[in-house]
């Protein structure tokens, strides 16, 4: 059986069946959710061995297979975390059982649309999938039905709706560029076929298309100045959703941008997408790091940190060349793993403390030593302290910038340092400091998903297997 079909059909089947399980059986639903995510991960792993033939609608290459596996892996660990998180929310009465049916169904629908966007060969399908992912997450952001949550979902809908619309306009322009050369119909939207012919396209239309695509999908990546939806959506939704939003959805949107960047790179007359991406990346990085200082809500703070890191990654891919692309790919992976680990632990922290406000969260290492120290390690990892994985990839980004464009290294390093300072400052208060009277509830959840992610990040900082290096290199060359 075709493993790609399994990867795509499992979440669909799970979404439909989870939609039918009544809310009072939410424990069973949560287990089924974990099981389905595991099957998706297992079949995703087989894609390394058996690679299906590309057709007009789907394909697997070196680049997307790695993101499919990463997505399936984080989806699986998040489903584990979600099971314990949601169980607790039901216990304290923040969520009622009927809503869980919706939640679990949507979780799998979201996984499906991301995997579809990653494996789609057809640009139209990719667009529909990103739109579907937006819809699924916007509905989940409003899950708590508080006023803030509804407002966040509304903002998310409107801003990302406009982004998605611009991306569609870009896609239409892309087809318009392809049509005279390749004739009409589905082949003119298939990425692999376009890539073979893109050199003959009219560069002027390609340029226009890319501007719309970058603004459109860039909104979903959370690049400045289109980032306004991101902190709200992260802060007000359930924490498992914040984890997959930060860890996965932003990557998928960036993946879409990169696919178009590759197309432009193969047309001699088209503009170089690099400077545009460098500009947006740097401005996101600088804006987000300065915003980090004034946050009062812990989830909002890490949402800004996601903008920061997506800025770094976009910057790296904008630089281009083997080394910077390698760094970008590595950073994408490390950020996904670390940020979702952070959101897992933040979820547990918010539950034991009963609040998301930074002012209420103090002295974690004293009141909850295991959770507290895990959180310390995770935050140090995201801040980029050696020897963890993020340090490694940031170091590579900085060295490649130094070698190619030394001037750009100044704002880059400045942004990194400012962000580092903000995170360490906040970490001191939350992890150490005086223990408040409230919030001593013992933690019941398993920290296994967090540790699994952190172990991978720590290992990658010290040693990356040569096969993986060779393979990252191959993808980096593909990215041009």
């Amino acid at each position: 059986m075709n493993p790609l079909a399994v990867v795509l059909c499992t979440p669909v089947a799970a979404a439909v069946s989870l939609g039918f399980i009544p809310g009072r059986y939410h424990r069973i639903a949560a287990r089924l959710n974990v099981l389905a995510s595991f099957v998706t991960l297992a079949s995703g792993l087989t894609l390394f061995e058996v690679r299906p033939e590309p057709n007009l609608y789907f394909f697997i290459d070196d680049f997307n297979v790695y993101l499919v596996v990463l997505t399936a892996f984080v989806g699986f660990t998040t489903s584990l975390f979600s099971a314990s998180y949601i169980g607790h929310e039901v216990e304290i009465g923040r969520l009622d059982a009927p809503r869980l049916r919706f939640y679990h169904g949507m979780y799998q629908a979201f996984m499906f649309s991301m995997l579809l966007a990653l494996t789609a060969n057809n640009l139209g399908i990719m667009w529909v999938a990103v739109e579907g992912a937006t819809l699924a997450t916007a509905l989940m952001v409003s899950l708590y039905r508080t006023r803030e949550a509804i407002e966040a979902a509304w903002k998310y809908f409107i801003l990302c709706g406009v982004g998605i619309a611009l991306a569609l306009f870009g896609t239409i322009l892309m087809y318009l560029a392809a049509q005279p050369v390749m004739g009409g119909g589905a082949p003119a939207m298939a990425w692999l076929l376009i890539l073979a012919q893109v050199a003959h396209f009219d560069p002027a239309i390609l340029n226009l298309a890319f501007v719309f695509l970058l603004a459109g999908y860039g909104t979903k990546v959370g690049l400045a100045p289109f980032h306004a939806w991101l902190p709200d959506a992260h802060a007000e939704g359930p924490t498992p959703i914040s984890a997959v939003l930060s860890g996965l959805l932003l990557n998928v949107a960036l993946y879409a941008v990169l696919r178009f960047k590759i197309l432009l790179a193969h047309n001699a007359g088209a503009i170089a997408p690099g400077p545009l991406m460098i500009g947006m990346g740097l401005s996101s990085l600088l804006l987000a790091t300065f915003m980090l200082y004034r946050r009062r809500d812990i989830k909002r703070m890490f949402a800004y940190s996601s903008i920061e890191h997506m800025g770094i990654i976009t910057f790296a891919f904008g630089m281009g060349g083997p080394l910077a692309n390698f760094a970008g790919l590595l950073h994408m992976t490390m950020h996904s793993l670390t940020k979702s680990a952070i959101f897992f632990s933040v979820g547990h922290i918010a539950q034991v403390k009963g609040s998301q406000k930074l002012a209420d969260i103090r002295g974690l290492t004293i009141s909850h030593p295991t959770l507290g120290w895990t959180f310390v390690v995770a935050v140090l990892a995201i801040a980029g302290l050696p020897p963890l994985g993020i340090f490694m990839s940031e170091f590579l980004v900085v060295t490649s910038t130094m070698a190619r464009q030394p001037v750009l290294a100044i704002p880059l390093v400045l942004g990194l340092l400012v962000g580092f300072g903000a995170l360490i400052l906040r970490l001191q208060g939350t992890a150490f400091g005086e223990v408040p009277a409230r919030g001593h509830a013992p933690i019941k959840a398993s920290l296994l998903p967090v540790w699994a992610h952190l172990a991978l990040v720590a290992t990658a900082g010290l040693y990356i297997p040569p096969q993986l290096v060779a393979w990252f290199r191959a993808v980096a060359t593909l990215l041009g």
Partner: protein
Amino acid sequence: MGHLEFDIAHLLGTMVLVLSFGLLFQRRIFGVLRTFALQASLLAAAAAWQAYVQDAPHLYITAAIALVFKAIVIPVALHRIVIRLQIHRSVETVLGVGLTMIIGVGLVTLSILLVLPVTYESGAITRENLALALSVVLLGLLMMITRRNAVTQVVGFMSLENGLILAAVGVRGMPFVVEMSVAFSVMVAFIIFGVFFFHIRERFDTLDLHYLETFRGERE
């Protein structure tokens, strides 16, 4: 493609654009809804005309979706929401109507200047259609920015989407147009559901909060 086919397509596209200006001009919410319904039916006509000219039967589905869903179902639903939730009947604007219209004219000029030189080699119908479509998209954006009320923002979003569909049906042989219009319709349906929900909540919120406060007070 003969002159007549070209002219009719051109005419329908231009009328969609004129109605975008109509949307910006309206000061009453019901007027906005009626204008939008008219715009959507003209879009349906434009899509059906393209289906006939290009001999692409699937575009008839797009036309039908535009006619049934956007020209009838959504305006009626929004009309009822406005009445039921007692939303303010006049449009709340950020900028004055006159200024908005001037900016709108500027945007149309911009999109013509942007699209026409770029698409020099494509067929004439695509070029004009694309310029009109981009103008409709930009005017939709302008409407979303300059209107405060949630209902008028949704209408702005939908008219933006009308522009996209206009672009998609105008490009010869574009696949997945139907799927895209369905995807958009689903999204809009959820957004409207969201508006409804948002306002319902706003009115019950005070009750809920009151309940929560008394509950907390009891506990501590």
